[in-house]
């Protein structure tokens, strides 16, 4: 078996207790790509992310990161290696202000040394955050919180930034802003793994995409090809 991608999942079976959710899920992400995982509610998108980030242990299968088998590694070790997760629902530290939240993002040894550089970098990407350094995260609007959550993930200088439904619950204009930011991040050299229900927006910016249905990968290919496929258009784009 040849492992050559930055992140690779091989035949992952996972779930919660007796509940088997993911069935032989295999996928891969190359350095510098934006890859999306699309699917409807309950298809197994979040479970896949939780398996990659280490929040759950797969029943079987392996996860490789930089050719290293990380299947048994605890979460903090994966973050230390450069796998950052921007969790669903944003999950900031509400009683901490913007800078403190960003400091938390640089908790790892990997991030600690270059803290000032990273801070400058994310403030450049998100000038709004710089204006309100001392605002408590809990008092920010949904769009701003999402920006902060992404910025916090970036403080770790990740090799891969994994995002769980960054557009969830946001107004269309903000969704656009978030997706523009994701494109900008790719230009900065960040590899992105995007989990989305908003298939149209995700396919527009992705290089490749996987479609997951009831825990199985049913389709994958270049985003442009998927966009033009009839079954995808009907099922996910409503066209």
């Amino acid at each position: 078996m040849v492992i050559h991608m930055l992140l690779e999942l091989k035949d992952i079976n996972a779930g919660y207790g007796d509940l088997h959710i993911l069935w032989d899920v295999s996928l891969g992400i190359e350095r510098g790509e934006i890859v999306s995982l699309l699917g409807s509610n309950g298809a197994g998108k979040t479970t896949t992310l939780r398996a990659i980030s280490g929040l759950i242990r797969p029943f079987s299968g392996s996860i490789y990161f930089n050719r290293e088998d990380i299947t048994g590694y605890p979460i903090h070790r994966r973050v230390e290696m450069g796998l950052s997760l921007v969790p669903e629902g944003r999950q900031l530290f509400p009683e901490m202000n913007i800078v403190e939240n960003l400091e938390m993002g640089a908790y790892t040894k990997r991030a600690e040394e270059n803290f000032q550089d990273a801070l400058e970098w994310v403030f450049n990407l998100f000038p709004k955050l710089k204006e309100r350094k001392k605002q408590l995260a809990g008092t920010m609007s949904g769009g701003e919180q999402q920006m902060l959550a992404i910025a916090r993930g970036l403080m770790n200088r990740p090799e891969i930034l994994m995002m769980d439904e960054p557009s969830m619950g946001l107004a269309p204009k903000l969704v656009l802003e978030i997706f523009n930011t994701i494109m900008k991040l790719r230009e900065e050299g960040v590899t992105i793994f995007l989990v989305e229900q908003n298939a149209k927006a995700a396919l527009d910016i992705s290089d490749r995409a996987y479609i997951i249905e009831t825990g199985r990968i049913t389709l994958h290919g270049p985003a442009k090809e998927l966009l033009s496929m009839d079954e995808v258009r009907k099922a996910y784009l409503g066209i």
Partner: protein
Amino acid sequence: MKITIKWITMAILLILALILPLFANEFIISVFVQAYFWAFLALSWDVIGGYGGQFSLGHAAFVGIGAYTSTILLESYGISPWMGMWAAGILAGIAGAFIGITSLRLRGPFFALATIAFAELVRLLLLYFKNVTRGPLGMLITQTGPQNMIFEQQSYYYYLMLASMITGVIFLKWFENSKFGIGLVALREDEEAAESVGINVYKTKIIGATISAFLTGIGGTIYAQWLHYVRPDVLVKLDYSTQIAAIDIVGGASSPYGGVIGSLILVPLSLYLNSIFGGMIAGLSLILYGVVLLLVVVLLPSGIYEFLRRRISDIMAKKMEKGGGKTA
């Protein structure tokens, strides 16, 4: 300006605390000895209970372990409590790590219940191993002299407890800005978010519990020296465990001053109520004490310290505004 006022206030309070034994009688001093002792325990509890948000109701177990360790070392092996207190802290710390490893995967009320059970276990073990602990009779401290941490006057205990408490405050001041302390606060706010930024949540909690228990164990040694005896049902009881938590919460959890304020109010209050109503109707003083606790928790949910801090910064802000208006 604000900072200098703060330091001047602190300096005045410190001087008052230092000269108090010169004026006060033995009884008043002994009230303060107890207040400082409970403050030290509340500050120790704050590490895991306040900053870490892991609600322990078993801290009396660490007081007991600390008190018994140094007392057994002193009475059976002739080792001075000045040395024994470190052994006490370490043994209590190991117990804290043990309860952390076994119970900290539990969340919320389940962890609290596990700590209650743990304290009960410690009490039963102290009763069971009669040949070491002398069981329900307890142990009397017969050694004397300052080299054995036994003093003739209350004022020596007063300074000892005061020093412990101030050490506790300084430790928490440092701790709350340390990387470890910040990690503990983060996991209290949101465990999954803390994990996703790379904090080893489980390990951080266990170390927090260990530090908290270590400090509490040292407190246990000093308390035993003040009491001159140790007994399982005197030291390891649920009342004590809840008292430690209550003092910290009433005063203001996750702050270096909350435990001090809570203790300086609640300990004299409970002693006073006990002396006034204790002889009249059994339990009346406890009911009144409970009412006061309830009132504070309902009216000032974030604790007395936080309430005072906000009021003071409001007043300061208003003054600043007025001052600014005049010059403009």
